């Protein structure tokens, strides 16, 4: 399974993270997203006319929507990451998968504006990002009150992975995460999962590993 990947792309990171958490092996094919705009070149447009990444190529299957890719990886390797049979849980997974698209537009838009000088109304993008974070915070508070630690259930699902990267990288777009205690605990729970991998800007929990020891050099 080949992933057309860009290290700084939160949407590509969703796929790498899901693969790491579910034990799927990916062949990474780096894309020169910036400054080369390779994703808008003829070769990649032939795979994905929308001109976006990530793209997954698995035999003759081509997937270009990150939520669909998450579902594909989970269905193959770890179905417990998908919604169960309860109507409410199934609906919640879909609710937050759709919501993750809004995060890409607002928090992701603010990040592209601030990091890659993409044009856009930064004030509006940040305001929409804050509104989305408040929605997520309220949703997580309610889930906690139901005794559930994650967005759709008391276990992580594809919905959590779909929402996590753009939220964790909100400060790149000038949006603070300080005001959201429930988001902070949720982010911590996700970063505590066995198999968690990092991307630039999203680091692992150092305290989960033993303290590294260094011998004093005798130079």
């Amino acid at each position, binding site marked *: 399974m080949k992933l057309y990947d860009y290290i700084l792309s939160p949407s590509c990171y969703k796929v790498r993270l899901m693969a790491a958490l579910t034990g799927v092996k990916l062949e990474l094919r780096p894309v020169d997203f910036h400054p080369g705009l390779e994703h808008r070149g003829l070769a990649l447009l032939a795979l994905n006319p929308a001109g976006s990444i990530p793209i997954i190529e698995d035999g003759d299957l081509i997937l270009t929507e990150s939520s669909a890719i998450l579902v594909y990886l989970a269905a193959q390797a770890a179905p417990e990451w998908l919604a169960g049979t309860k109507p409410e849980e199934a609906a919640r997974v879909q609710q937050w998968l759709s919501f993750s698209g809004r995060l890409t537009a607002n928090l992701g838009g603010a990040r592209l504006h601030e990091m890659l000088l993409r044009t856009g109304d930064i004030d509006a993008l940040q305001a929409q990002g804050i509104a989305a974070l408040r929605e997520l915070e309220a949703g997580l508070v309610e889930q906690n009150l139901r005794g559930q630690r994650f967005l759709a259930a008391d276990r992580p699902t594809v919905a959590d992975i779909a929402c996590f990267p753009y939220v964790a990288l909100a400060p790149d777009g000038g949006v603070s995460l300080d005001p959201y*205690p*429930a988001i*902070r605990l949720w982010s911590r729970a996700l970063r505590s999962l066995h198999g968690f991998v990092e991307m630039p800007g999203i680091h692992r929990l*150092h305290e989960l590993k033993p303290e590294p020891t260094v011998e*004093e050099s005798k130079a």
Partner: protein
Amino acid sequence: MHTLTTGPWTPVALSADLPVGTVIPARIPAGSIALWRSESGRLSASADRCPHRGMSLSHGFVRGENLSCIYHGWSYARSGKCVRIPAHPGLEPPEAIRAKTFAVEEAGGVIWVATDEAATTPPVLEGLMPLRSMTTSAGIAAIEAAAGAKATAEGLVVPAENADTLCLLLSARDDGQTLIHVLLKGETTADSRIAASRVAESLRRAAEDLQKKGIAA
């Protein structure tokens, strides 16, 4: 301008939002702080600035009884004293390397930090159970107007329409934002707690509307 008289004490966070072995950012009138809880459960509050290179200590991590900076791993004890510099494992860090610390108290599920070495204790909130904290761009006057009730000297507002179930503990910040700790009265169920959280969201929305229109300015 509203002056709430909680003495030197600021309600900075809810206990439930700071599990053992974690650090979070918070604000007091003296500035930003790193609020952390050690593995054994002891609370600490230090200035949010590593004495080494100025990195925010709230970006760091807690291992055992110490807070470590994310940048170069300098570790600080509860007293603020630097206890470890990873690049110099054989060195006993000099006494002079200290992060500034503040008095911190926890009562009824609320964490309070004092701006100076206070002889007093933080206000006691009888019969109230914390639900959640939220930040708003509305000031205290706008929140009072939205709630239809005045704040007490401790910063407690009992919203007129939810007087039997809800109480808001307000803390004005120097950046014009207000931190709201949503507290519950009496017996609650999961359903009533979820309902109260939604009421608080609506109150915040109403207060921010009033703030924007300048009605409560």
